[in-house]
């Protein structure tokens, strides 16, 4: 069989994800794609490959994998405990996974979605122009034990690189712009929304996350009579009981609840990665400010490869430290005389 990765054990929700399938909104199918797009870009930068290649998205928990031959891997997104045959691996870094070795990825230490990018990318079947599983639409599925993932050819060989990930795994403040129904909310409600601290609820998945305000919910009289209208990822929809939902990549395409605003695409990974109980706040930006912020972030993302640096392993992480020759070139004086130590 060609180059592949075998799934020995899978956490409850590991899916193949790429940047999704735009173009089907008119047919009721949202773009989908990685919940944290930035993690795909970071993985691609670490492996010096195309960010459109598909990778594995691991929700909350990883799995165990075996390589059919030596291959490069990159670990990005929510940091998880990872090891190859018991030797710990640094997150936000690239490594060599030797043929036959067992890669173990455990629970997320912070954040929700961890990513395993493979040298050459996953080369599975495309449906409607993408490999992404879209669970809400019934496209693709979560992986199980025994699944075999075919991989594309890998043009590179460099591993042992790291990248400083943008911090986004503990909640925080995200920027939103006004949207379709923002004006239906009284200015005092908007001000209160900005001043409110929200806790990410336990109800959340790739479609969206519920965020529970400290204090009262948000209400608009006018909003109750709005017609169903288009929904896009990032929209903050305020449901009947006043609790907002932030819509993510696999969201429905229309909705009848009023939208108080829409999260900037660049800040959406922070929402997706906030785990239950994490605190989120919202800060309104004008469209002009949003464009300037997105322009700067697009430039930063384009230059991600320049942020990749060699990984310097911490001595504590090296299990078999004593088997390494630590002081290369040091010799006992007498072998300079040509006496081999035999």
């Amino acid at each position, binding site marked *: 069989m060609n180059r592949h990765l075998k799934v020995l054990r899978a956490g409850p929700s590991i899916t193949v994800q790429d940047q999704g399938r735009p173009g089907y909104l008119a047919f009721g199918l949202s773009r989908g794609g990685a919940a944290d797009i930035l993690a795909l870009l970071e993985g691609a930068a670490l492996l010096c490959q195309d960010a459109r290649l598909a990778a594995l998205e691991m929700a909350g928990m990883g799995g165990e994998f075996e390589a059919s031959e030596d291959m490069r891997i990159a670990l990005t997104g929510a940091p998880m405990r990872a090891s190859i045959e018991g030797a710990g691996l640094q997150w936000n870094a690239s490594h060599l996974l030797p043929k036959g070795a067992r890669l173990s990825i455990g629970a997320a230490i912070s954040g929700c979605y961890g990513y395993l990018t493979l040298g050459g990318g996953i080369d599975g079947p495309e449906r*409607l122009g993408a490999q992404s599983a879209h669970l809400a*639409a019934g496209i693709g599925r979560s992986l199980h034990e025994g699944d075999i993932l075919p991989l594309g050819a890998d043009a590179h060989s460099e591993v042992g690189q790291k990248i400083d990930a943008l911090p986004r795994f503990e909640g925080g403040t995200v920027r939103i712009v006004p949207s379709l129904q923002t004006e239906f909310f009284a200015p005092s409600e908007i001000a209160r929304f900005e001043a409110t601290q929200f806790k990410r609820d336990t109800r959340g998945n790739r479609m969206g996350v519920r965020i529970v305000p400290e204090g009262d919910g948000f209400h608009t009289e006018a909003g109750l009579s709005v017609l169903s209208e*288009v929904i896009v990822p990032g929209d903050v929809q305020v449901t009947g009981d006043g609790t907002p939902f932030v819509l993510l990549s696999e969201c429905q395409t229309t909705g009848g609840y009023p939208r108080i605003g829409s999260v900037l695409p660049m800040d959406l990974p922070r929402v997706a990665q906030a785990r239950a109980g994490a605190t989120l706040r919202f800060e309104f930006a004008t469209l002009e400010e949003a464009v300037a912020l997105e322009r700067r972030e697009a430039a930063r993302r384009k230059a991600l490869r320049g942020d990749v640096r060699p990984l310097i392993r911490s001595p504590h992480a090296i299990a078999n430290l004593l088997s390494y020759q630590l002081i290369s070139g040091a010799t006992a004086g007498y072998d300079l005389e040509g006496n081999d130590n035999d």
Partner: protein
Amino acid sequence: MLDNDTAKWPKLKTAGYDGFLVSFGDQLSEGANRAALAFRNAVDRANWPAVQETSTSLVSTYLRFDPLALDHNAMRKALAELAADRDWFSAELPQGRRFWRVPTVYAADFAPQLDEAAKAAGLTTPEAIASISTARVRVQTIGFAPGMPYLGELPDTWNIPRQKTLNAQTPAGGLCVAIRQLVLFPVATPTGWRHIGQTAFRLFRPESDQPFVLRPGDEVMFEQTTPETYTRMQDDPDGGAVSEIIR
């Protein structure tokens, strides 16, 4: 908030960071629905390089564009000029529309909320079946879930509200009613619409070259069939539905 004066429409709004919505009304009407479909078609034909995707909802055209390639003011100006170009409310419906006849069971086990919906509409259950199964409704938009149609308009007696609490799970192929509209679910889903009939019609076929079956503008009649016939049609992706081009 409701406003029927077409002279005030369309209205342009930004939708999130990278979208615009061109709305032709704030309540559903035949004219606004036609206008939205025709305007989307015109945006597609304009082929603006910054535009990445378009769609329609009941009364609006949506477009997503790249604000780093074209700023919001320039996009708004281009849309406003196109909007002023003609009377969109009198636009023709799209070409190549089809008329579908979809076998539907209205018997008790397959239509758990039919009696309740009939009562809300002020009809007996047989009257409700007769009304729904002979109504020729149009696909006003596809949305919410892949391939899912919103169909209308039903007679005024069907202007019944959605339920306050959601049904836990309405099955795929379920026909549901509220506010003079029908929806047909491609996948099992919780819903506030009342489940009044069941079809074996598969609306989304991701494995197929033609994954989406219905298009906006298509017309549909949910003809009554028996539970036995419905059961026999389970293996047919069309669920016994037949279509013809509307001329």
